[in-house]
């Protein structure tokens, strides 16, 4: 007898494969106009770089990116950033660009360059 349940691992694998492909496409959107190849090491340093007025990324995202963060003012939980525990991360270019735009301006007081975004994504994608 054919069992639908047997298909679950197949769909899980398909889902992961699609997510991986989407993440690559999002990263390529930025690296295409960046001068250098994306670097996870630079990305990690950028993530931890202090911003304006004592701001930085960890204030909302926490120190362990495999766990949920919390908006520092509204206290609303923010899903984990690490794709290993939150496979939806960095698969939707519109969403990624919206938050890069807002949070680079808020944290650093300016927009991030394509190079910086590519580096940060490269690093986050390893988590």
């Amino acid at each position, binding site marked *: 007898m054919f069992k639908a349940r047997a298909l679950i691992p197949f769909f899980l694998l398909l889902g992961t494969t699609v997510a991986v492909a989407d993440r690559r496409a999002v990263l390529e959107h930025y690296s295409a106009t960046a001068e250098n190849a994306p670097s996870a090491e630079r990305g990690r340093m950028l993530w931890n770089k202090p911003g304006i007025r004592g701001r930085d990324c960890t204030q909302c995202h926490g120190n362990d990116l495999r766990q949920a963060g919390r*908006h520092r*003012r*509204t*206290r*609303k939980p923010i899903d984990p950033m690490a794709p290993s525990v939150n496979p939806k991360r960095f698969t939707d270019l519109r969403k990624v660009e*919206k938050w890069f*735009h*807002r*949070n680079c*301006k*808020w944290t650093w007081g300016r927009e991030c360059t394509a190079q910086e975004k590519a580096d940060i994504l490269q690093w986050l994608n390893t988590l």
Partner: protein
Amino acid sequence: MKEIQKTFTPLVIFLTLVMTIGLTLQACAYEDDDDDDEGFSRFLPARMDFRPADDPQYREECGACHLAYPPGMLPARSWQRIMSGLEDHFGENAELDAQTARHITEYLSANAADRSHTGRAPNIARSLGVDAPLRFTETRYFLRKHHEIPPRLVVNNPDVESFSRCEACHTGAERGDYDEHQVRIPGVGRWDD
């Protein structure tokens, strides 16, 4: 037996009529009073102080950092002010692309306090006059409902911190239910006044 029934039936009909008219008048009286337990909401099976936010795009974008506030909480002119200042949104950056912003502004305006007939919206609109506040929590209407709550239960309460977090105390906030009997202040419990 027949006799009793003959005099009793009109009496029952008469009493029922009097009670219905009385209740209706009472409800109307509450409608005009912009304070407690307003309007017919008392007689509806499921209480609704606000029509909950139901536009998917609004819920996704404006529910990202906090409760997707009910549009009936502020008048259209307030929502338009909020939507045209998203770059500095209470100190945060909440910028949106033009197309999404336009859609959300239209949704909020169409269902705003001064356009909606649901729950508290008409009374909120009336109490504001021509003001266009950016915050519901700073309106006289809001302050009057919350003046009995001491700051230590809000600002100094790590589980609340701000009155803007309606859902921290109003357990039915997502459904648009703000009945004072559904209030649980974290670390304090049920609110009995």
